[in-house]
């Protein structure tokens, strides 16, 4: 059984799953349709309520 995992979509859900899986020790392949990951969140400036830069 291959222990690699494919994550389709590089938005916040895809990135968080990839991070958690990588932390668990799995090799993750994250696939994103666009040239950069980040999804909708990357298009935001700051996020409420912490005013963190979205990117």
């Amino acid at each position, binding site marked *: 059984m291959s222990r690699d995992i494919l994550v389709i979509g590089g938005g916040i859900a895809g990135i968080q799953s990839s991070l*958690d899986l990588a*932390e*668990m020790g799995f090799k993750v392949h994250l696939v994103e349709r666009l040239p950069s990951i980040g999804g909708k969140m990357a298009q935001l400036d700051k*996020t409420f309520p*912490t005013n*963190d*830069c979205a*990117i």
Partner: protein
Amino acid sequence: MTDKMDEKKGGLEEIRIGIFICDCGTNIAGHIDCSAVTSYAATLPNVVYAKENLYTCSESGIAEIINGIKQHNLNRVVVASCSPRTHQPLFQSSCSQAGMNPYLFEMANIRDQCSWVHMQQREGGTEKAKDLVRMAAAKAAFLEPQKDIEASLVARTLVIGGGVAGLSAAEGLAGMGIEVILIEQKSELGGLLRQIDTLGPEGDKASERISGLIGALKACPNVTIHTDSKMQDIAGYIGNYDVTIHQEGREEPIKEKVGCIVVATGALPLRPEGLFGYNGTNVITQIELEQMLKNKSFDAKDIVMIQCAGARCKERQYCSRICCMIAVKNAMIIKKQNPGANVHVLYRDMQMYGTEKEQMLWDARGMGVRFDIYDPDQPPEVKDGNVRFFQPLLGKPRDISYDLVVLSTPMVPREDAPNLSQMMRVAIDQNNFFMEAHAKLRPLDFATDGIFVAGSARYPATVEEARSQGLGVASRVATILFKDKLVTSAIVAEINPETCVGCLGCQQMCPYEAITYNPELNACEVNTILCKGCGCCASTCPSHSAQLKGFKPQQLLRQIRAV
């Protein structure tokens, strides 16, 4: 003295600092002159390389740090950009990748503390950015390499609460091979779902769902369930928690050692004493209606439901979010059982988010459920036999006769939540719901390492939300317990036992209870896993025996004197 210093310096390798100035798009470069800051940085002592990046945190920015370290043989890196709170780990890992000790990295915050606060003052802002960069470089020269701290991990988890969230967390964890100890206050598992009749208008029975979940869990060999049990005490830290559980009817407390803890204690529907004529007989709550539907004692014909009963008011400002869906579901169940029944829903706003729930609202209207808006300043009055409310379209009060009034009350935190919060040192919000570490990015974590939250303990959750949070929490726990050891930051306090006189000043200041007194040495000691590197002890210690690695007096003084 000078000779000694020179001797010492001669023994060390040459300090080679690389400085990376981030534009952060227009966030920094829009308000200060980043090119000027970069050329200034290049002139600072020990600086051998300075580079401006559009986004230092982008892939190309990271590559520039790695290449810079390799090509220019850097042994110190300063990034002048945003907050270390969000980006220090990323830049430190880039340094490691290039073979540099990550603790030789320093950050200057020229965005949150400079460009954002001096938006209309380009010249002054630029000068301040130069100051900040010079200070960071001065400190960087005196940084010392450190080694991450390693500790053992107990691959077991304690789940507190046997409702949907707790059961799901336990199921997820057990499925991944992590041993689970589940404790439940009541004598039976299932939580609030035990009191609910159906989960949807189609008549999906809650009891069947819950027995399915409990059955799956009981079949797991690596799950221990303690019912009639409560948390009594907790000690230790991530990876090594010692918990004491009190089980009713048992004299000796149960003691367990676990690596992580999941808080899934749920919430309770408010009993609206004194609101809208609540009496528990013909003016009842949704949860009481559920029980009537469940034991088939429901026989009302004219039903009025009042939404936001005791919610979104002075005492409880929050929206409990799930009561609208519960009301619509129950209204549809009643109409299905008896199409001749009159169901009238009085609401302030209908909160039916998602595709299916919105459709439910339309379906309910199609079935003849009546919806009328009310103004919170003129709430409905429950009188004997009728409910009077102000109909804004008609512009006058209207009476609806009833034989049953159902109040949609909010979910409220459990009374023991503040207690548990204090015992476990996890945060609660102004309403006493448990509070996550970060509203957006860490919804299932507590700020305390190794402790997590799921379900209505955090905020009123639907069954599917409690379930997905429970399963999500299992995955968060696995990110810790799938490893064979715990690795944490070396930025912790250390206390020199030679100079410490055991005054305990630091112990009183420590917000993490990381400091203990050792009577044999007559000195205080730091637990390096509990220590979060806040520096309270270091700033309190009258003899400078407590020092924070990476923020030692000589390092901070260099930084301050560079102003």
